[in-house]
């Protein structure tokens, strides 16, 4: 009897233990499989030494043999005998290193994160669906499906990703799959298209329509024109004035009568603004000014930085292409890079290509909605959206589309109820794609300026400033993308969606996009600032990036002679703040604050560089923020985040002018002057810093204020790169801004008979946190140094200089792949 009790009790305990250790409790991983060295995180412990020599590997799906040589930085160099195998292998090796990242991007892009992470992601997912991410991706895919060359490349990439997934045993799933207890989903062409949609929103998803509309109601047209639409006098436009602009026959669309007919203050429109610092630098210098006599090019895209990086370095070689650089995990082709003839890089344009239209809508039947357009009720199309929430019921809602684009539902809160149809429609370039994959397919193969330009004509959104340099000695800058030929300021405010005259006009022809080739000044450059000089005949946007980076870069480039890679590297790492250089003296001149005179003196002696060990940059940053806030906080309640910029304040200060909004309207008896605002904001600065960092001014170092934490892409703690100390600021060419924004890739290319490239990104080739290649490049990036970009012209060079090679045999379908590479 006693033994039966023992058996019963111990059996119960055993089963409970097995269940408890196998079950996923809340946010924890399944304990036992996670800790098992046979299947858990220990499997991610990849060897700390690089393999050498040659490995053999059979792979079904290939048409021919392929050589993949990994260099000392774990960068793959693919040598294929046809383009199918080339893009197949790109998909395969990218998935091998970055599968989780691709997975996460695909779920996030489609608004499916609730499937992985549960109801907490519903708000995020709903936003993705409401702005029509899948709708846009499907339109993009439909374009590709009519282009057999690009479709074949994309199909091959997808096959390659899936070939990796198919041979992957559960124990080999990347760490994040084990943490979340999920399995890889097959890759699809649509997922690659969705990634482009995500980038399009990040780079071309800004809209100030709501704030501008409200500001106009609150303060009037004149006020808005004077303080919000104005341009800094220090702006160096990307494309200076061009002689032939005057001769163009096509003119700007005239402004219709109903242009400004939406006076209402709109409050319940939620628009998620992408980071305003999503920008970049790029430039090219003519061979006349370089030591080699060949042009040189630099490019560094500034994005939110994550671990693993958004970039994956790769070389793609087949009989008709040899390109190297960085790619997007999730899409074929090289995105920033060079081939044997040309080099290229991109910065963002940020034109006004997202507009909202006010729309009168009505429910016509239980699932039918109509909207009023040109005197008639037009039926809206609709899509049924299902949210398959993990461990919960499926939520369904029907979203409606006008001819403008998605009708934004009124209800934005997290709710399990389907939302009501709203009264605003979104018009966005992301829903009018062109063939951006053809652009990169052709760019990878382009040999000269003509072919470069032809490739760029396939750009719709996100519009980019493409910089170019070639072995022919040409340098160029082309503002590429689809820009509707808007009347001056069309879409600055929410428009009346019931009138056809407010619809977007046809695009500005590509030939009329701002561009220049081999300018006399010997360089081209862009830093997201205004695309073209004021006399450019078309309107693209009111306010692009501040002048600071662009002015600094242009002035530095103008002084270069016999330039070297080192000169370019120094300019990429330049931490000079031009706004501070012009504005701080004006601030110091006016303030009479008696508080902390020694610190005010240190500001007066500052060289305007953002060095991590100095406290002066912190003083400037907090003071200028507080000053800006003091001037605009009261009015800001009315017009949201879009307020007169510090550049406007700077111009007013230099002209010794005053503005009505300098006064704080909440204090009725006093009319605040600039001096009063400067004094109080300076005193607040000292208080803020003491509160935040303590009394000791030595702990106010810029490194503290601007501490960079590159987080894991799913925000999993322990898997990111924390507490990074670097120089730089968002207004310096080295645009590093806390908490995690900055040069996500730095590249310098020296043209010549043997093109030489240098690059670095914060991270490493492997997406596996257990690999030494996860953060391999990080220290170099922090130190502001670059690695050589290995570029092999053929397999002989690869064999001689590479670390190890994998020879892929084209297996018959019925033979199993042998997963011998790790």
């Amino acid at each position: 009897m006693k033994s039966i009790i023992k058996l019963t009790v111990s059996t119960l305990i055993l089963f409970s233990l097995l269940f408890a250790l196998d079950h996923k409790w809340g946010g924890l991983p399944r304990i036992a499989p996670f800790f098992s060295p046979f299947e858990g995180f220990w499997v991610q412990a990849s060897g700390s030494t690089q393999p050498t020599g040659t490995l053999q590997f059979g792979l079904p799906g290939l048409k021919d043999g392929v050589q993949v040589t990994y260099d000392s930085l774990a960068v793959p160099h693919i040598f294929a005998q046809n383009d199918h195998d080339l893009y197949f292998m790109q998909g395969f090796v990218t998935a091998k290193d970055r599968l989780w990242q691709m997975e996460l991007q695909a779920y996030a892009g489609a608004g499916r994160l609730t499937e992985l992470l549960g109801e907490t992601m519903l708000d995020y997912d709903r936003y993705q669906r409401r702005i029509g991410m899948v709708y846009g991706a499907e339109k993009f895919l439909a374009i590709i499906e009519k282009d057999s060359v690009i479709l074949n490349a994309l199909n091959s990439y997808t096959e390659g990703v899936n070939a990796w997934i198919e041979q992957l045993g559960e124990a080999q799933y990347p760490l994040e799959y084990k943490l979340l207890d999920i399995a890889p989903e097959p890759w699809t062409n649509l997922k690659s298209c969705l990634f482009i949609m995500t980038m399009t929103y990040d780079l071309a998803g800004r809209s100030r329509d709501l704030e501008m509309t409200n500001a106009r109601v609150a303060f009037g047209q004149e006020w808005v024109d004077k303080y919000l639409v104005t341009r800094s006098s220090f702006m160096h436009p990307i494309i200076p004035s061009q002689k032939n602009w005057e001769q163009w026959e096509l003119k700007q669309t005239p402004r219709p009568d109903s242009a400004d007919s939406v006076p209402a203050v709109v409050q319940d429109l939620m628009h998620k603004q992408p980071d305003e610092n999503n920008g970049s630098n790029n430039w090219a210098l003519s061979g006349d000014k370089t030591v080699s006599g060949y042009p040189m090019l630099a490019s560094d895209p500034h994005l939110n930085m994550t671990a693993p990086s958004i970039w994956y370095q790769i070389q793609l070689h087949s009989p008709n292409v040899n390109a190297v650089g960085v790619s997007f995990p999730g899409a074929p082709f090289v995105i920033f890079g060079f081939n044997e003839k040309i080099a290229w890089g991109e910065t963002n344009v940020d034109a006004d290509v997202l507009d909202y239209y006010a729309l009168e809508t009505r429910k016509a039947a239980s699932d039918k909605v109509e909207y009023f357009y040109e005197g008639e009720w037009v039926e809206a199309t609709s899509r049924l959206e299902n949210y398959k929430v993990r461990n919960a019921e499926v939520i369904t809602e029907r979203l409606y589309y006008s001819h403008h684009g998605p009708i934004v539902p009124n209800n934005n809160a997290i709710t399990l109820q389907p939302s009501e149809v709203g009264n605003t429609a979104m018009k966005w370039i992301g829903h009018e794609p062109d063939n951006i994959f053809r652009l990169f397919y052709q760019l990878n193969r382009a040999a000269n300026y003509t072919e470069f330009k032809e490739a760029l004509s396939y750009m719709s959104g996100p519009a980019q400033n493409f910089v170019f340099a070639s072995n022919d000695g040409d340098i160029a800058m082309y503002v590429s993308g689809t820009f509707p030929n808007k009347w001056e300021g069309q879409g600055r405010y929410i428009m009346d969606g019931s009138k056809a005259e407010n619809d977007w006009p046809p695009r500005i022809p590509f030939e009329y996009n701002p561009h220049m080739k081999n300018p006399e000044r010997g360089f081209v450059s862009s830093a997201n600032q205004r695309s073209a000089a004021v006399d450019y005949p078309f309107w693209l946007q009111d306010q692009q990036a501040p002048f600071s980076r662009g002015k600094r870069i242009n002035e530095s480039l103008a002084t270069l002679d016999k330039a070297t890679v080192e000169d370019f590297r120094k300019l990429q790492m330049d931490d000079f703040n031009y706004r501070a250089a012009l504005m701080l003296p004006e601030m110091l001149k006016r303030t009479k604050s008696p508080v902390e005179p020694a610190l005010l003196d240190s500001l007066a002696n500052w060289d305007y560089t953002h060095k991590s060990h100095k406290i002066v940059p912190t003083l400037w940053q907090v003071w200028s923020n507080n000053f800006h806030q003091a001037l605009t906080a009261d009015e800001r309640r009315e017009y949201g985040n879009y307020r007169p910029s510090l550049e406007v304040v700077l111009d007013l200060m230099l002209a010794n002018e005053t503005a009505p909004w300098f006064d704080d309207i909440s204090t009725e008896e006093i009319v605040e002057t600039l001096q009063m605002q400067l004094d109080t904001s300076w005193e607040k600065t000292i208080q803020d810093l003491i509160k935040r960092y303590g009394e000791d001014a030595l702990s106010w170092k810029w490194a503290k204020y601007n501490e960079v934490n590159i987080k894991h892409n799913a925000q999993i703690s322990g898997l990111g790169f924390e507490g990074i100390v670097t120089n730089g600021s968002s207004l310096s060419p080295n645009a590093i801004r806390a908490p995690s924004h900055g040069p996500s890739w730095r590249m310098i290319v020296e043209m010549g008979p043997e093109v030489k490239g240098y690059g670095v990104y914060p991270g490493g080739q492997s997406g596996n946190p257990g690999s030494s290649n996860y953060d391999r490049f990080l220290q170099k990036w922090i130190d502001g140094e670059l690695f050589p970009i290995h570029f092999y012209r053929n397999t002989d060079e690869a064999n001689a200089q590479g670390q190890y090679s994998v020879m892929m045999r084209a297996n018959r379908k019925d033979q199993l792949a042998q997963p011998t590479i790790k």
Partner: protein
Amino acid sequence: MLKTFLYTLVLVSLMQIYSVWWTLAPAALLVSFLSAKSEKDAILSGFLAVFLLWTSLALFRDVANAGIIATRIGALLGVQGLSPLLFLISGLLGGLVGALSSYVGFQLKTVRQAKTPPSAHYEHQ
């Protein structure tokens, strides 16, 4: 003692290489049922076999990896200080399941022996 330990080690290793983690439980249970001589024999053999197996493989991977993944997982779980000892935690976890499974196997045998005539029992051996 040694016999139960060795058989457990061999069978559990095979199950772990070819199947999921919890198959170690039926494996340890079966060996203990067939070969354990006492409660102590069962518990010790079950514990040590799985503990050694999981610890040694975890340690091997940890060393080859220069501690990279252990450091990250330690940080992830908020126990950075324990990172160098994570392999032991794995081992103890496996060992616990091994010991309990063996114990159940032995109890099953005891109950069965009590119900079964000795002759029948010996036929099974």
